[in-house]
């Protein structure tokens, strides 16, 4: 399991079954990798209106997300999906959507020393591990990573990342953030959805139980 500290893993039945139940199910089902797309969470109002205190559950401040504006493309080379959208595309990249960051992630893998992550946890090798989606109409089981990056701490973080210049595509992403953040944007809109539980995400079609029941 590979997750960032600002990512909260949500999987089907996560409120009643421990992670071990999931892996105990994945394993005999011969499923080696489990997808959980990033869902950017944000507060209502400008980011610095509600300061984050250490130890606080960030979802208290940033419980909102975009329910239905994601674009999916298939990466022919690695077989993984390329998911973009959410508030980051809507607010920071409305005129250059191709630059919006990838939201597809495969954080849970039954690891083997021959495997490797190619770009963050967005894609893996060998390619078969990227087939976390069904191509014949069905739904495979999947989860979500609630991404609590958009807190009042974000502006400082964006500046820092710009200086480190470690990020993909020469920090295009962070340049865009820094520019927009100067205007104190409100990521919230009237169609934002407030997070309740995994069942809500499943109803919205952002994740699926697949055949786990």
């Amino acid at each position, binding site marked *: 399991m590979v997750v960032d500290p600002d990512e909260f893993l949500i999987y089907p039945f996560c409120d*009643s079954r421990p992670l071990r139940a999931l892996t105990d199910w994945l394993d005999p089902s011969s499923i080696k990798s489990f997808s959980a797309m990033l869902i950017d969470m944000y507060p209502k109002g400008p980011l610095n209106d509600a300061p984050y205190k250490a130890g606080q559950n960030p979802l208290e401040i940033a419980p909102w997300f975009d*329910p239905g*504006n994601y674009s999916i493309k298939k990466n022919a080379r690695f077989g993984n*999906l390329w*998911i973009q959208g959410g508030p980051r*595309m*809507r607010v920071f990249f409305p005129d250059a959507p191709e630059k919006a960051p990838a939201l597809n992630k495969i954080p849970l893998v039954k690891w083997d020393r021959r495997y490797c992550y190619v770009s963050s946890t967005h894609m893996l090798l060998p390619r078969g591990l990227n087939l*976390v989606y069904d191509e014949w*109409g069905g739904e495979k089981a*999947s989860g979500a990573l609630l991404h609590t990056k958009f807190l009042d701490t974000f502006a400082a973080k964006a500046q820092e990342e710009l200086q480190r210049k470690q990020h993909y595509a020469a920090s295009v992403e962070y340049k865009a953030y820094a520019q927009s953040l100067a205007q104190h944007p409100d990521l919230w809109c009237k169609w934002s959805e407030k997070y309740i539980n995994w069942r809500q995400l499943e109803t919205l079609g952002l994740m699926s139980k697949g055949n786990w029941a």
Partner: protein
Amino acid sequence: MAGVGILMLVHTALGRAEQVARHWHAAGCPVVIHIDRKVPEATCAQFRQALSDLPNLRFSARHRCEWGTWGIVAASQSAAEVMLAQFPKVRHVYLASGSCLPLRPVQELIDYLAQRPRTDFIESATTADVPWTVGGLDHERFTLHFPFSWKKHRTLFDLYVGLQRRRGLRRRIPKGLVPHMGSQWWCLTRQTLSAILQDPDRRQYDAYFRKVWIPDESYFQTLARIYSTQIESRSLTLSKFDFQGKPHIFYGDHLQLLRRSDCFVARKIWPHASRLYEAFLSDSNAAMKHTEPNPGKIDRIFDKAVDRRTRGRAGLYMQSRLPNSAWENGVASGRYSVFSGFAELFENFESWIAKATGARVHGHLFAPQRAEFAHDQTIAPGAMHQSAAIRDYNPRAFLTNLIWNARGDRQCFQFGPADTQDITWFISSDPNAQISVISGAWAVPLFHSNRNFMEIRKEAAQLQRIVSQFLDVLRAPHCKARIRIWKMAEFIEAPMEPLQTIVDEIGIATPRHLTEAPKLRELAGFGQFLQNLKNQGMHPYLMGDFPIERGATQPNIPPRKPYLVRS
């Protein structure tokens, strides 16, 4: 001692198996346990030791049990032999596994079986009648050879099956056997079970079934048909299978569901589902009414799971569902209407159609500057942005998201030659799309525009080219949308009739006769305008034949039928 003996096949989670064995034993049922040969000797000895205080518990000779192979049958045979030999009072023998859990008080099962002393409970159906086979093999399980493991050497397995099919290689089914299949978890009477085990032809049958694929689902199921006087073709063990033929697993959150199932035994239970073990093994107040087992409620949940895994939600595109073309099971999630030329021809078409149908009516969703959402909104349900760049980056996702986010709320939008055309192929192949085109109506705004004629001529030529390509797409053989195309001249002859058809097809709660017509734009001089284009060398042909001097008549509402009021 009770008249019901329990055979338990165990291979993992021995702690749980011990708990369940004690539970059976405490209710007076003798228990015979088969431990998979793969379990290490030390673990095995420990397990035996832990259960050594139970007088009516035995262990049987161990076999190696691999899925789909003979080992499981051999294990059941050995355990059954021990049971029949050592516990002469046993009348019914119940085959269970280490991950089975009794849901009702054991005494109820004992009473239930005592009332049916001659009944064998074993699911047993002929191969022609079962839909559940994995790998597409049903009758061939009994007529082909399977030397390769399906789980470990799938390619070899498939190749060898294919080879035998091509060569027409067939095994002979022993005389007198009619292959039957069913759940491997049965409950047989002493008479039937001993007849099977002591059959003079058993060597021959065993040799045959040893090479059948998944014999644990067919050995007892077939042989019971020979000896049983009364078969109830169902399993007393609730066991649901997913689309790979793998048993569904029960967790703590299934507690209420299992309580309501009224089944005697359920499998398979997740070993860490303490909530279930605590509830069903200690608390006999969890007892349910004395009713016939009824797993229907659970069936529905698991059937839905299989359906979701194999068919999914129509029109949903997400991280774990991205169907290949033609496998979408409905391209968009709901029905929608595309209007081309209507807003150009009628002044108030959008508000009119919204009123007539109650649908959500967008403007030109694919306009070059921005997506014109209904009521001039800049953002639409689902938090969809109006940006043309985002839309054109993935037009297909844009449209399917829009329909999905609307959740059953009928969507309509305008579409014309000035719009981004990338979506045409997609909508024309969607059976959910209703596409209505008045061909040539794109010229009306040009006719009303106050621009230099040369500019108009140039644009007219360009628009006509685009529309003509659009019409070609709509007439291609792949189309699955509900498509209607009228030439403009033909349409304005009698506009109400096509409009009524379209509105009827959209379907509103109370179908009604249209009482109001949309207002046609002023068309006096349009014929001359077309003639002028022709005179400039551009050939407008998509609108049909327009007489030079004809304007158009406003659409009329047919008068209501007269009716009589009795006083």
